[in-house]
């Protein structure tokens, strides 16, 4: 792996910006283009780049398989949980207006949380799918 020095340096330089851009897209999605789906795929692309260049082992240290599995479920649960919470505090399912003092703030908070859930699930699924494909090849090589 040492022969790809240029790739490693460039990737290392790019990684923080990709992550920062992903976060920006995630949380600025209310005002500009962006949102959970887009941010999710940007994060995933960043991690996949990392895994391609530094190898699966190092990427696995950054994002262990357990965390990814947890994240896949966590995102969906967060989304559905927001809906359940709305019911508990007296609204309809996924009716964010009741989440804060006035409806506009409630809507804003609800959308933010839901987008976060979407982002977590999309990132985890994409990275997990890539890792699964790549690990499959490795173990097949062993046999």
């Amino acid at each position, binding site marked *: 792996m040492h022969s790809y020095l240029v790739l490693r340096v460039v990737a290392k330089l790019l990684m923080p910006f990709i992550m920062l851009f992903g976060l920006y897209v995630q949380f600025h999605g209310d005002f500009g283009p962006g949102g959970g789906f*887009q941010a999710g795929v940007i994060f995933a692309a960043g991690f996949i780049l990392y895994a391609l260049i530094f190898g699966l082992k190092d990427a696995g240290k950054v994002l262990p398989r357990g965390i990814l599995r947890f994240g896949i479920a966590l995102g969906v649960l967060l989304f559905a949980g927001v809906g359940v919470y709305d019911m508990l505090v007296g609204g309809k399912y996924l009716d964010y207006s009741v989440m804060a003092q006035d409806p506009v703030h409630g809507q804003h908070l609800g959308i933010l949380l839901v987008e976060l859930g979407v982002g977590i699930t999309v990132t985890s699924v994409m990275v997990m799918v890539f890792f699964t494909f790549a690990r499959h090849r490795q173990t097949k090589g062993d046999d």
Partner: protein
Amino acid sequence: MAAVGLYNYWIVVFLMMAGFYIVIAHDNLVKKIVGLNIFQASVFVMYITFGKVQGGTAPIIADGVTTYSNPLPHVLILTAIVVGVATTALGLALVVRINEAYGTIEEDEIHDQDDDT
């Protein structure tokens, strides 16, 4: 005027048919999935074309802008793209498993093997 107004749809039809042709005429499973993706992309282009309004801008509310494109198709296609890649991944995973089970990803060879057993 009619030709200009409908040009986008004709491109969509061409892409859709090209994807359809790849799916039905080729035996290779990976190529079939690429064909499905082209088919899918043509549908995306069609929806976004529906959403376009002449003189409008992207549907992000800003001062001094009165015309916006229709946001609804954008929402539908946004989710459809991500779901599309997830299902594509599932399809590719199935192809990998088929390759392990049969040793080939050509459809007719798989049928031949099934007939033999």
